[in-house]
């Protein structure tokens, strides 16, 4: 990955590019489609497959797309947590545990206080605390990052089961759908994009925001520098330890939001082990998306789609006697895409290594 140049130079290049674009636009578009021909082909095939399984009916198509977005939300949030940590050089395999703890904490607080909003904030807060634990072990104490993440996963299962009492409910019910006025009435697209629950909307806003922060701001440049070459970053006066602490804690907050999504927006209660591997799938999503929020969103949608299509299979009465074969679709899709299409994605150079100032 090439680091972005300094601000003045970048502004100049931006103008320059804009000029070239207007001259050679057709050629650029052709080149774009040629470069991404496999992705374009996949997208076309998927679109056709969706329409076909939905029997070319609008209601069915909409419901598949709605379900895709719903399945993708916790995955893209988890992936954003992962890439925020890894861009600064810390592997976070504890996303699963962070999500589980926040789902539990958010639910307990919302159930006790009666307010979903307080519950969501509690979930984010607990996620940040778990991020703090990860940062404390792996950055502060220079422990091994994989072990630190595993610690969080195991501890989360233990703590949430140990302190969970059955029979609690949410007095306010789970989060409700918000419709964005007339936009929500557009056929297909309006139902899918403008008629969602609050955390889903927030996620849709966070994806481009994080992309901008990561690739167009000073903080983003520093984060990536710390992840690629920490000692070089330190020599120009960036605090490697400080950046890592900050990013891992913020990342934990994002994983916490994903946890709150599961218990307060998607399900409306807490179940033991309710994350069910989503934190790990989010890591796959992050790698598919090449450590880029927009890419991660695409990957999360693909994965969400392969989960959503299960319902469609049941709808058309395919494989209903052998539901196990429907159940493996998302996982097989992940493996095939990882092995077939993505090739060799390159992670930030310094991940996995504890940093100590010599």
């Amino acid at each position, binding site marked *: 990955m090439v680091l972005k140049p300094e601000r003045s130079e970048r502004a100049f290049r931006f103008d320059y590019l804009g000029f070239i674009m207007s001259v050679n636009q057709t050629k650029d578009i052709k080149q774009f489609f040629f470069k991404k021909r496999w992705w374009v082909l996949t997208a076309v095939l998927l679109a056709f497959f969706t329409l076909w399984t939905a029997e070319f009916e609008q209601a069915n198509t909409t419901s598949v797309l709605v379900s895709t977005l719903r399945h993708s939300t916790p995955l893209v949030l988890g992936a954003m947590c992962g890439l925020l940590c890894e861009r600064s050089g810390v592997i976070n395999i504890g996303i699963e545990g962070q999500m589980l703890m926040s789902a539990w904490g958010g639910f307990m607080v919302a159930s006790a206080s009666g307010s979903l909003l307080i519950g969501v904030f509690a979930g984010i807060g607990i996620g940040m605390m778990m991020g703090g634990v990860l940062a404390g072990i792996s950055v502060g104490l220079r422990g091994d990052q994989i072990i630190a993440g595993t610690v969080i996963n*195991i501890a989360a299962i*233990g*703590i949430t089961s140990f302190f969970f009492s059955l029979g609690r409910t949410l007095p306010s019910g789970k989060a409700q759908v918000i419709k964005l006025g007339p936009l929500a009435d557009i056929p297909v697209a309006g139902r899918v994009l403008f008629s969602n629950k609050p955390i889903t909307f927030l996620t849709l806003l966070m994806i481009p925001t994080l992309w901008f922060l990561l690739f167009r701001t000073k903080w983003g440049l520093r984060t990536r520098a710390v992840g690629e070459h920490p000692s070089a970053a330190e020599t120009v006066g960036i605090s490697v330890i400080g950046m890592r602490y900050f990013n891992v804690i913020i990342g934990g907050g994002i994983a916490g939001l994903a946890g709150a999504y599961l218990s307060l927006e998607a399900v409306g209660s807490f179940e033991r082990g309710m994350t069910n591997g989503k934190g790990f799938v989010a890591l796959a999503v992050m790698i598919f998306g090449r450590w880029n929020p927009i890419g991660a969103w695409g990957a999360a949608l693909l994965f969400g789609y392969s989960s959503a299509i299960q319902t469609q299979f049941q709808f058309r009465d395919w494989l209903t006697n052998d539901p196990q074969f429907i159940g493996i679709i998302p996982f097989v899709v992940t493996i095939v895409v990882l092995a077939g299409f993505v*090739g060799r994605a390159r992670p930030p150079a310094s991940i996995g290594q504890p940093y100590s100032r010599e």
Partner: protein
Amino acid sequence: MPIFAVALAIATGAIIIALSGSSPVDAYKALIEGSLSDSKSIGRTLEKATPLVMGGLAVAFAFKAGLFNIGGQGQLVFGALIAGAVGYGITGLPWIIHTPLALLAGAIAGAMWGAIPGILKASRGAHEVITTIMLNFVALNMTDWLASKVWREEGVIVRTPHIESSAEIPRWGELPTGFFLAVVIAFACWYLLRSTTFGFEIKSVGLNPNAASYAGISVKKIIIMTMSISGLLAALGGAIETQGVVGRYEPGFNAGLGFEGITIALLARTHPLAVIPAAVLIGAMEAGGSMMQFKADVSPEITDIIQALILIFVATPLVVRWFLSQKEANELSVSTTWGS
């Protein structure tokens, strides 16, 4: 130093038990009573420890080549199911052939299942952490299907028929023979890694794949072989469990074992022989957990918390060094990057 980490974790666990309103002394007394007091409870501890030794070995072995195998769970259920199928499906063999045959079938199934992520990594650069997790979910669904459709016992419960007595691993008094088999395999792994060319090649790839490749070692071959052996070890754990303890395959078989394998491998600092005491320790906690709930009214999940605490203290030598004021930096590192 790991012993000190364990002591520190148990002390912290005592504080948590006290905070939740029970007596830590009673709880630990019950834990020991349930796991180590007589030959029956020791048998139960070793029984629980057997798949843990194998799961720990699987993770530790892969670590030596710089690979992180989180797919122990999937490999284990495949081994358990295939061993169960061979155990009931083939009749009329003497036990001296039938028992090893079923074990071998389970082991080979696991080795093949483990080879998939190895091949995907070697040929396509797909990261093994992701593929092994995905294959866990696939394996759980496939074994579920096989147990409910192909090899199902007549009746309402989804499970395979009980294996023939000729395929059962016998008990030695109260003690499970399977545990001793696992110990022998641990020694075999230790010898393989320490004293053979193949073991040297595995460690070279783990330390520096570029240097290994430069020295003429085929890195791809080593990756595939290591993942296969790792899968074989985990699957043998499942096969021993089927043939020595459960007697058949049932869905929901040993949930979560793959992750305990990680804990054990790390506690043992990836040394194959140290895996044995680490697995016995965790096995004792699991064997005594129900007694602790019964006698001291402490939820058995406290053992999960203690396991996590042990890991924290093992993973962060700095914490333990504050207590012991040791000077040597004896730091543990297993992370390699995601890199392909």
